[in-house]
């Protein structure tokens, strides 16, 4: 088993259903004004099996809730509205995600971005990186440049 980077397939359908709001949207003839949703990033062991088929947050394969890791992960700062560049729509969290004074329960190599405001904590995407272990330290995940080429979430 291994984690694979992907925009979750279920997320693509949910976008079409209007199930995720990365930015506030004005009312239309059907829906009232929506405020933007809240998101979290959860860390997963290298032995987990996250990928395109992941549909929602699950504690299975996540770092254990020990060593100052809180189950469910950390909140994502969302102060920058989605926008477009060329023919690409994109969005990036507006701050790094930081886990402080952390001792990870094992080697981890993936973060699941998911919607905490949604019923069922719907998954957005899986991001993988070189496996890390943290001991009484800080793990900082700095976001890429928020533009149409590098943003964390891009629909081109």
């Amino acid at each position: 088993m291994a984690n694979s980077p992907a925009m979750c397939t279920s997320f693509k359908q949910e976008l079409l259903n209007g199930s995720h709001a990365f930015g506030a949207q004005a009312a239309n003839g059907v829906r009232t004004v929506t405020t933007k949703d809240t998101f979290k990033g959860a860390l997963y062991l290298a032995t987990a099996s996250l990928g395109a088929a992941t549909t929602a947050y699950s504690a299975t394969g996540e770092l254990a809730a020990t060593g100052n890791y809180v189950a469910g992960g950390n909140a994502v700062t969302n102060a920058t509205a989605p926008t477009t560049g060329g023919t690409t729509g994109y969005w990036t969290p507006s701050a790094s995600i930081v886990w402080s004074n952390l001792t990870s329960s094992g080697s981890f190599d993936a973060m699941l971005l998911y919607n905490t405001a949604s019923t069922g904590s719907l998954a957005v995407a899986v991001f993988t990186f070189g496996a890390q272990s943290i001991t009484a330290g800080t793990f900082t995940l700095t976001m890429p440049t928020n533009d149409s080429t590098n943003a964390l979430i891009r629909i081109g």
Partner: protein
Amino acid sequence: MALITTIYGDMDDALLVKTEGEIDNEDERTRWVEYRLRDEVVHRSAHMTLKKMPVFANGDITLFG
């Protein structure tokens, strides 16, 4: 003297062996630092910058015809 948070509490860095490293590839740039007491890792931090993400979705439509 600097105090390092370790699994044994705050320790004087003079008592520890420090190693640092960096990984820089097309996916990420990661800097890590370790402190060891004898052969045991008592502190490890990593700071990772995610680089260009793969394009996850390509918007498309079907043409009528």
